[in-house]
């Protein structure tokens, strides 16, 4: 006895077992992500969904049963092809997409920050070391506090990189399966490194409370 879920694929209703649903859902998420950068993404994924719905109907009819099981989903995926198949088939047509995927987005980096992560975020955007951006802001600060004002505005305006996707877009990593895997592994390494660093080095977080009063003091002097 297994629990089934009722799903709707572009207007067609299917009963599908829970495990099978998980496999199908993961596959469709991968497919959608793969075609995400393509202008025709909706049309292509709808075509694929419709064909999957049709294959399900054929399977149910051929085996005169009512519920889709995991094996059926795997068979359908075999026929349709995996993301790796899509990627290798489009190798050269895919070049412009890959270029788009490396377009970076500006976020505040909440993992490499002194204050709000604005400088680290900008550094990520331009692929530089954060220290140079920080230096520029520090120097600009001495011109009537321009650096500080700009920093505060950016702190308010620029969103914080919250999700993994944000962090990857910030560093210009491709948003595909390999990219996610790499990003995750890097993060794991980073966590290990941080754990080691915590033992002997104060985290920038602890410096923050000391910096804030210092800044307010400087603001008072300036204005």
């Amino acid at each position, binding site marked *: 006895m297994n629990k089934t879920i009722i799903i709707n694929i572009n207007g067609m209703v299917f009963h599908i077992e829970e495990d099978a649903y998980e496999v199908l859902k993961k596959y469709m998420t991968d497919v959608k992500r793969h*075609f995400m950068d393509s202008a025709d993404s909706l*049309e*292509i994924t709808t075509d694929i969904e419709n064909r999957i719905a049709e294959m399900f109907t054929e399977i149910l009819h051929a085996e005169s049963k009512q519920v889709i099981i995991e094996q059926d989903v795997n068979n359908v995926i075999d026929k349709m*092809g995996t993301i790796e198949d899509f990627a290798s088939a489009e190798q050269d047509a895919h070049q412009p997409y890959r270029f788009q995927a490396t377009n970076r987005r500006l976020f505040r980096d909440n993992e490499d920050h002194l204050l709000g992560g604005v400088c680290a975020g900008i550094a990520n955007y331009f692929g530089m070391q954060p220290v140079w951006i920080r230096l520029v802001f520090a120097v600009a600060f001495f011109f009537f506090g321009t650096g500080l004002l700009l920093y505060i505005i950016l702190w308010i305006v620029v969103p914080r990189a919250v999700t993994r996707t944000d962090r990857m877009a910030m560093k210009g990593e491709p948003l595909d399966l390999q990219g996610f895997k790499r990003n995750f592994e890097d993060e794991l390494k980073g966590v290990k490194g941080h754990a080691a660093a915590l033992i002997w080095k104060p985290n920038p977080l602890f410096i923050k409370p000391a910096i804030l009063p210092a800044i307010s003091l400087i603001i008072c002097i300036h204005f």
Partner: protein
Amino acid sequence: MIVENTQTQMRKGILEYCILSIIAKGEIYASDIIAELKKAQLLVVEGTLYPLLTRLKNNGLLSYNWVESVSGPPRKYYTLSPEGKIVLEMLDTTWRELAFAVQTSIEGRDNPNT
């Protein structure tokens, strides 16, 4: 790697030509196109065909009709547009030239395509 790349390029070049040729035989459904391509050992999985068809359609070479189906959602049946027919004729010429070029080039080699 270089060999693989060349092979991919060669296949890709003729894939669109073959798809257009298959569709030129008459109105056809995507999964029947796949069946033909499988028979020709050109393409094995269906998913790779949909982006190609969408691109050919957006370039004005194909058009499609929705046809009601008993076994699922309505199906898209593809046909060549007038522009597609012109392109296909041009590709026919190119293919003959290519076939000639390859045939001439490999002539006299020890065992070409045995």
